[in-house]
C-alpha cells in the first residue's frame, strides 16, 4: 500500500510549490484522509496535487480526477473509492469549502468510477452510490471474516466467494457482473450502485444464505447481529446506517 512509485520523485518536486495554494482546511482534510494510507511525508506530497474543484466541472469530478491521480502515483490503485469517500468525509468534518456534494452535477465524458455513479441520492433511503457499494462491500468482508473464524477448516476465500456468487443469480446482470468482478478478484472494489431495499439488500441477503449454509442459521444470525452492532457503533456514516440494508 505504501510502496513508492516511479512518479514519486516528480511529485516531490512540485510539492513545495503547490502546498501554499491549498486552503488550510482542505489541506488538513486531505492530510487526514491520505494519512490513513500513506506516511506523513508522502501524504503531504499527495495533498500537494490537489487543485480544488474545477471551474468548468463539478467538485465531484475534480475530486475523482484527483483520487485517480493519487492512486496511480502513490500505489493506491483499487482504493480510489475509499479515498474518495475518505476525503469527502474529512472535508465535511473540517468544513473545507472544496468539499463536494454528492448532488453536484457530473460532467459527461469523465470516466472515473465516481463520475459513473448517479448524481443524486438513490431513490430509496440508501446512500449515494459510491457509499452504498462501500457499505455493502464492508458488510460482505465482515461476513467473510466471520466465516473464516467460524469454520476455518472449510474456509478458503475462493470457495466462499464462489458460494456467494452462486446464490446471487437474481441480481440484475450489470450489478452481478460487478459483484463477480469483485468476488473473483478482478477488481479491488465493489463497483456500481447497491441501494438498500434493492440490489444492496439482495446481495447482503445472498451472503446470509451462503453463511447460513456454511455455519448454520443460528450462528449466521449471530454473525449478522455482531456485524450490525459493530457498524452501527462506527463513526463512518456509510456503515452506521447499515440496518437499512437488512
Amino acid at each position: 500500500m505504501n510502496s513508492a512509485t516511479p512518479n514519486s520523485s516528480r511529485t516531490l518536486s512540485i510539492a513545495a510549490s503547490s502546498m501554499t495554494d491549498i486552503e488550510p482546511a482542505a489541506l488538513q482534510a486531505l492530510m487526514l484522509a491520505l494519512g490513513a494510507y500513506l506516511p506523513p511525508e508522502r501524504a503531504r506530497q499527495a495533498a500537494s496535487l490537489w487543485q480544488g474543484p474545477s471551474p468548468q466541472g463539478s467538485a465531484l469530478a475534480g475530486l475523482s480526477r484527483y483520487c485517480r491521480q493519487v492512486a496511480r502515483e502513490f500505489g493506491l490503485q483499487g482504493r480510489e473509492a475509499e479515498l474518495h469517500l475518505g476525503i469527502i468525509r474529512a472535508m465535511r468534518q473540517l468544513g473545507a469549502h472544496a468539499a463536494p456534494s454528492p448532488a453536484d452535477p457530473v460532467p459527461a465524458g469523465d470516466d472515473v468510477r465516481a463520475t459513473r455513479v448517479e448524481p443524486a441520492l438513490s431513490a430509496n433511503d440508501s446512500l449515494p452510490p459510491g457509499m452504498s457499494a462501500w457499505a455493502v462491500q464492508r458488510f460482505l468482508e465482515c461476513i467473510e471474516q466471520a466465516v473464516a473464524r467460524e469454520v476455518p477448516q472449510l474456509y478458503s476465500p475462493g470457495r466462499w466467494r464462489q458460494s456467494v456468487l452462486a446464490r446471487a443469480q437474481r441480481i440484475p446482470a450489470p450489478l452481478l457482473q460487478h459483484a463477480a468482478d469483485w468476488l473473483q478478484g478482478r477488481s479491488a472494489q465493489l463497483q456500481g450502485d447497491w441501494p438498500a431495499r434493492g440490489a444492496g439488500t439482495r446481495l447482503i441477503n445472498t451472503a446470509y444464505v451462503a453463511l447460513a449454509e456454511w455455519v448454520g442459521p443460528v450462528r449466521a444470525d449471530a454473525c449478522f447481529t455482531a456485524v450490525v452492532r459493530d457498524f452501527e457503533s462506527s463513526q463512518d456514516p456509510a456503515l452506521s446506517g447499515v440496518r437499512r440494508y437488512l
Partner: protein
Amino acid sequence: MDAPAPSGRRPGPLAWALVMLCVSPAAWAVEDPPLRPAVDMLWLVVAGALVFFMQAGFAFVESGMARAKNTVNVIMKNYCDMCFGAVAFWAVGYGLMFGSNSSGWLGTSAFGLHGVPEGEYGMLFFQMMFAATSATIVSGAIAERARFSAYIVGSIAITGIIYPVFGSWAWGSVYGGEGWLKSMGFIDFAGSTVVHAIGGWSALAALLVIGPRLGRFGPDGQPRQILGHNLSSVALGAFILWIGWFGFNAGSTLSASVSVGKIALNTHLGGAGGALGAMALLTVLRRKVLLTVTLNGSIAGLVSVTAGCHVMEPASALVAGLVGGALSVLAAQVIEAFRIDDVVGAVSVHAVGGVWGTLAAGLFNAADPFSMAQLGVQALGCLAAFVWGFGGSLLMYWLIDMVVPLRASTLDEQRGLDFTEHYELGYPEFQQDAVHRGKQHD
C-alpha cells in the same frame, strides 16, 4: 392470612348439585328421556372445548420449537387454522364427511348446516375441532419458512376437502349411507388415521414442496440442529395437548357413557407409554434423553391409542403407546436422513404414530385380538390414507406453490416471519438486535 378458614366456607348451590349428581343412583343412570340427550350434548360440547384447547397446545409446542423471530407467525398459523378451518368445515367439509353417503365415497348433504334440529349442531361443533386439529399438524412441520397466505390456503383445503373426504370413507355418515372403509369394519375410534395420519401425510407433502430451512443441512448434507427458543413453552404445550386428548378420545363416544373412564385411562397410559418408549429407546441407543424427544414420544403414544382406545385393555394401550413413542424416535431419524426438515417432528409423531395406532387397534382389539383379517382392513385404511392424504396434499401444495408460492423469500427467512408476515415481534424487549429494519424504520 385474612382469608376465612376452610371450615368457615359454605358450599354453594352448584356444589350441592354436583354432590347430588354424584351420589344419587338416579344420576348415574341418566335414563330420563329429557335429561339423557342433554347430558350427552353437554359432554360432547365439553369434549369439543377440550379439543379446541389442543390448538393452544399445538401453538405452544410449535412456537417453542421455532426460533424467537418466528414465534408470532407460528401462533398466527395455529390460530387461523381454527378460524378459517371452522368456516371451511361448516360450509363444505362437514357435508362431504358426514352428509348422506350412498356411494360410500363422499357425503352429499349437510353443507353449511342451517335450520336443522338443535341436536345436530353438537356433532358439527365437535367434528369441527377435529378438522382443525388435522390441518394444524402441517403448521409445525413447515414452521419458519412458509408464506402465511399460502399456508392458509392449504389449511382451508385440508379442512374443507382432504380431511373430510377421507373421513367420509372411515366415519361417514350421519345422514344415511356408510363409508367404504367403515363398511369393511375399519377401526379408527377417534382418528389415529382420519385425523393424525392424514395431517401427518399432508405435512410430509408440504415438507417436500417447501424444502428445508436455510442452513438446516450443511454443504455436505450433514444435518444441523436449529434449537427452539423456548422449551418451557414446548412442555406447556405438550401438557395442554395431553389434557385435550381426553376430550379428543373420550369425547368420541359422542355420549356420556360409562366407557369414557376406560377410554380416558387408555389415553393416559398411551401417552405415558409413549414418553417411556421414547426415553427407553434413546437410552438403548446411548443417546441423550432430550425433553423435546420425550414430549414428542408422549404425543406419539397418545396418537397410537387414539384408534383403539375403546377396544383395548389398559395393558395393550400401554404397549401401543410404548411402541408408538419408540417409533417416533426412529422415524425422526429416518426423515432427517432424507434431508427433510420437519421442525416439530409432525410426520414421525402423527403419520407414523397414526399408522401404528391404526394397526395396533386391529392387533390389540380385546374382542378379537391379533386378527389378521382385521389387521388387513386396518392396513388397507392406512394405505388409503397415505394415497389420498399424501397424494392429494402433494398436488394441492404443488399447485399453491405455483401460484403464491408456498416458500417465503430468503430475505423474509433472514428477517424472521414475525416481522415480514405480521409486522410484530414476539419478544420486542429481547429482540433489539433483530437483524432487520424493525418497525421503527417504517
